[in-house]
């Protein structure tokens, strides 16, 4: 019997371990519908055009992205619908019978939150260093901010990691954030925050400016921004493995979006 996108979403809801919240505007179908027949599932960080094309090449027509499809969090198509890239993307998705169902809010409320599991795995932040399960705070052997950032960069194969702080600052207490959820750096118990991205100023709590002032005062603080895509993409591997565990009859795999940036010489 053919498996539909609706069947897979029902299994996700059943296996989640907590009630589904129908008031989430994020975790809904973004293209196609529950009745679309599914040949295979691609989990992805963003449902970008390249991911859709590579999913089709791999014989997968259901995309389960963590983030948006139409370049805004609400996936409001009225903002983008006159753009040529939107038109090309939708035409391609229609032609290839694509169905897109986003999993964001429920992924973050799931325990464990795979975005953190994946990020910690990829960064080499072993659970033996975590102060308590799911505290996302890791106390590692003392190192320098420069050595820590270089280690992360190497492990991720990243090009455009951005760091604020004194490279020689001696650090050991790391608070891991993911995506845009950057932990507060003005926490006396934290030396370094690691996350995807955060606005450079005008945030609710703090900013790189706080870390620059810490440098002036000789207080060891660091701010490591990995980029949104590579920060949360790692956990989409765990998401694929989890979906595969209750969807054994079709292929399920992570399709990586990779880092969007390169850096000039």
């Amino acid at each position, binding site marked *: 019997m053919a498996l539909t996108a609706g069947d897979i979403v029902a299994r996700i809801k059943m296996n989640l371990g907590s009630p589904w919240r129908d008031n989430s505007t994020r975790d809904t179908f973004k293209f196609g519908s529950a009745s679309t027949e599914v040949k295979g599932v691609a989990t992805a960080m*963003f449902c*970008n*055009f*390249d991911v859709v*094309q590579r999913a089709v090449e791999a014989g997968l027509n259901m995309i389960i992205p963590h*983030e*948006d499809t139409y*370049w*805004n*969090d609400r996936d409001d198509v009225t*903002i*983008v619908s006159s*753009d*040529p*890239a939107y038109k*090309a*993307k939708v035409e391609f998705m229609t032609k290839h019978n694509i169905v897109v169902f986003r999993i964001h809010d429920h992924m973050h409320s799931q325990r464990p939150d795979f975005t953190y599991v994946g990020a910690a795995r990829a960064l080499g932040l072993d659970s033996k260093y975590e102060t308590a399960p799911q505290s996302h705070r890791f106390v590692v052997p003392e190192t320098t901010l420069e050595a820590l*950032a*270089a280690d*992360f*960069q190497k492990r991720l194969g990243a090009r*455009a*990691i*951005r*760091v*604020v702080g004194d*490279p020689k600052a001696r650090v050991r207490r790391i608070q891991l954030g993911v995506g845009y959820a950057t932990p*507060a750096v*003005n*926490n*006396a118990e934290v030396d370094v925050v690691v996350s995807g*991205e955060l*606005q*450079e*100023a*005008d*945030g*609710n*709590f*703090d*900013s*790189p*400016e*706080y*870390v*620059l*002032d810490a440098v*002036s*005062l000789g*207080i060891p603080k660091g701010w490591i*921004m990995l*980029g*949104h*895509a590579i920060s949360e993409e790692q956990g989409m591997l765990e998401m694929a493995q989890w979906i595969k565990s209750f969807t054994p009859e079709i292929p399920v795999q992570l399709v990586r979006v990779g880092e*969007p*940036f*390169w*850096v*000039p*010489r």
Partner: protein
Amino acid sequence: MHSISRREFVSIAAVGVLSRQVQTPVTASDLVERIKQRSGVEWRTNTVDTFKAGDPATIVKGIAVCAMPTMDALKRAVSAGANFVITCEPTFYSRGDSASPAAGRGNAAPVADPIFNAKNEFIKSNGLVVWRFSDHWRQRKPDPLSIGLTDALGWSRQRAADDPARVTLSRVSLDTLASDIKKKLGARGGIRVVGDPRLNVQKIGLLPGTTAIQAAIALLPEVDIVVAGEVREWESVEYARDTVTAGGKKGLILLGRVVSEDPGMKVCAEWVKSVAPELRATWIPTTDPYWRPS
């Protein structure tokens, strides 16, 4: 010819015949009133452009203008003889700009913070007054942030006469252009690029500061590349990437918010001189906050 107030006339007339000490003293709030009157934009009631630290009744000895008032920038302001600081970005790290730490996530009680304490102490002991000028400065026409950025990039003759955010260059590869921009702005780790490095670029659109997807969607189809300060990565970065995937010969260069605003505050310092000709106004440049591991 612009009109000048009686007070300004008296001040200007006094230069050359009287020493600075016997001029009518000007307070920080006097200066802000002048700025409001001369800004050319209607002053908003809901705005971040307010006093952030110090006593507005302080007599101003000199003015420092900066994009971000770090401890380092404040020290340089004091060295330049300034006690009134005009800044584009917050002083105390958040939009609320409270001089003590905000309650933490989940409303955790704020704790004494050595960095807030040191900054408050420095401001107090040097008698500084800090005032933010962001909402209204960036609303001026023509856009002073784009004027500053194009000046800093050596594009003042390549920008459109009616819109400084539009630049037409001789053909150059995205790779070469990005390296050139990095060098001219003294950028470090904050500059990041989306698109084919070999892309030929002639038409450039600027989006200094922080902008939402609507701005990129409106601009990118009209130009070869957008040079922006800061965008949300799930918005304009993925939009640029999808445009390239769809076959669009396009690119996006992100400079970082503060790096993109910094030259616009140099323009602000020049403008402030015209508003307060009896006082010295000094631009305090800011460096790229980011570096990259080697």
